[in-house]
């Protein structure tokens, strides 16, 4: 417990001092995306890494949150904060309703069903032109405001988004180390044994699916209000795969791993701008290499890998 608190404090301090070390709004802007991606990866990890249920449609929930916020604030003039809460609640309820039939499926069938779900959302974003602006996007989304502070520059947005990200990380770590977290991991390892021990596996899977979708929707709202402009391409199948890659790189079931996965997969495309159109191929290769050599993810895998590379040192220590 003490160690968890220490890890979190180190992260919080890092987040607080990083922008002062970086010059130029470009890097701060990249870190804003790291924050949004971390929220999404952590949300997906609760479902995929803990409960062991895959979703290939999480970009869709992210998009639903973004579009719900955009439409409620811009078209209907509702306060952005209220829009964000409404979007999160509505997306959670939707996921809860969809979750009951869909999470009865296992393995490949669940992957196919969630894939279909993501594609349906993507089609709606593109085709409901009057509502969403269609493929040309939705612009003029207002910034968030607290009193007289408007979140209209990169530094303010950085603070806002990382505040949400830190809260997401903290609450997820708490959840992971509680009876609910244990029940989720139990379902992952042996659903029948978990049920025999009194875990209502079916309900808990649906609840965590709804929670995961709700966090993704909040990330979507933040994204919409920060960028002021959204278009369907940000919420497509490729992005769902990117999110899964983040979770797997960091390690299934490791909350801080998701943060590292999000960091790497956000920085990497910036660094590899020349490969732009081939990014999905690079993600594919990363996924293959990770599952072959570091199936536990970076956070858990690297110490083990180092130990394997230096067996002689270990013996001396012993």
């Amino acid at each position, binding site marked *: 417990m003490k160690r968890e608190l220490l890890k979190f404090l180190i992260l919080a301090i890092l987040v607080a001092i990083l922008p002062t070390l970086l010059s130029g709004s470009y890097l701060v802007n990249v870190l804003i995306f790291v924050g949004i991606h971390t929220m999404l990866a952590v949300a997906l990890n609760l479902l995929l890494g803990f409960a062991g249920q895959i979703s290939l449609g999480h970009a869709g929930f992210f998009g639903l949150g973004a579009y719900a916020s955009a439409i409620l604030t811009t078209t209907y003039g509702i306060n952005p904060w209220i829009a964000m809460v409404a979007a999160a609640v509505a997306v959670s309820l939707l996921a809860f309703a969809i979750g009951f039939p869909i999470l009865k499926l296992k393995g490949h069938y669940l992957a196919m069903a969630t894939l279909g779900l993501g594609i349906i959302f993507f089609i709606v974003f593109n085709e409901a032109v009057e509502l969403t602006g269609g493929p040309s996007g939705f612009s003029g989304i207002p910034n968030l405001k607290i009193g007289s502070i408007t979140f209209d520059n990169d530094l303010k947005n950085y603070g806002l988004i990382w505040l949400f990200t830190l809260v997401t990380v903290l*609450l997820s770590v708490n*959840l992971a180390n509680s009876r*609910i977290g244990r029940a989720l991991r139990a379902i*992952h*390892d042996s659903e029948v044994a978990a049920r*025999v*021990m*009194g875990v209502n*596996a079916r309900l808990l899977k649906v609840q965590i699916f709804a929670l995961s979708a709700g966090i993704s929707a909040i990330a979507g709202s933040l994204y919409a209000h920060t960028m002021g402009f959204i278009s369907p391409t940000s919420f497509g199948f490729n992005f769902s795969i990117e999110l899964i890659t983040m979770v797997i790189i960091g390690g299934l079931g490791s909350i801080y791993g998701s943060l590292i996965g999000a960091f790497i997969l956000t920085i990497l495309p910036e660094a590899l701008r020349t490969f732009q159109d081939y990014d999905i191929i690079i993600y594919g290769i990363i996924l293959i290499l990770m599952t072959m050599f570091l199936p536990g993810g970076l956070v858990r895998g690297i110490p083990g890998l180092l130990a394997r590379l230096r067996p002689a040192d270990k013996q001396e220590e012993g």
Partner: protein
Amino acid sequence: MLEIQAITQLFGGLTALCDVSFTIRQGDITGVIGPNGAGKTTLFNIISGIYRQTSGRILLQGKDITGLPPERLARLGIVRTFQNIELFGQMSVLDNVKVGLHTKSHSGLFSCSFKLPWHLVEERRIAESARRWLDFCGIPDLADQRADSLPFGKGRLLEIARALASEPGIIFMDEPAAGLNSRETQDLASLIRKIRDAGITVVLVEHDMELVMDVCDRILVLSLGEKLAEGTPREIQENTSVIAAYLGEG
């Protein structure tokens, strides 16, 4: 305590169980024996809610519990262990037992995420009970190991500790001695008695006749899906049709 009334289970054209009725008495250690394919595990799967029987009823303290799912039965105090141990392999031994306390705790998503005060109190209580049950089963020193790193015999004990942590009224053990050496089997026999003395009714499916005859108060014999006999170990040992079924005579 638990009444099994006229259970029949068909798998396609195969009759796994045919009209089996039996009463498990509170505080007894009951053995279910029979040659391979007699339907013992099927009976367990039905009682623990994993299969839904073709017909027949199950009553717990006079209350109909037919067809309830395993998670509901766990709340009513019916738990089981598995023939091929089903541990939560990626979790620590202690965390495995903590899952056993799931029905004894109530914090939901919200209070767990926000670490509300009563949740912290509950977590402390869960940890204490879990350690107590590891002690009870004689494996307190394994608490921090990963469950899938345990040798088979210890895994069995962990599975029993996890089941006991839910403080059941009745525990079903599916071949608890399978894969154990004679020393471990002796320890198991005393553990089973200890469980009964703690006020928990025990039912076991077992092939190890020495163990069954040693610990059981009553025995149910199944053969080819039908009830062949029931009675005390002595009565069963002297029952000619049981002997015939085991030796394959007439």
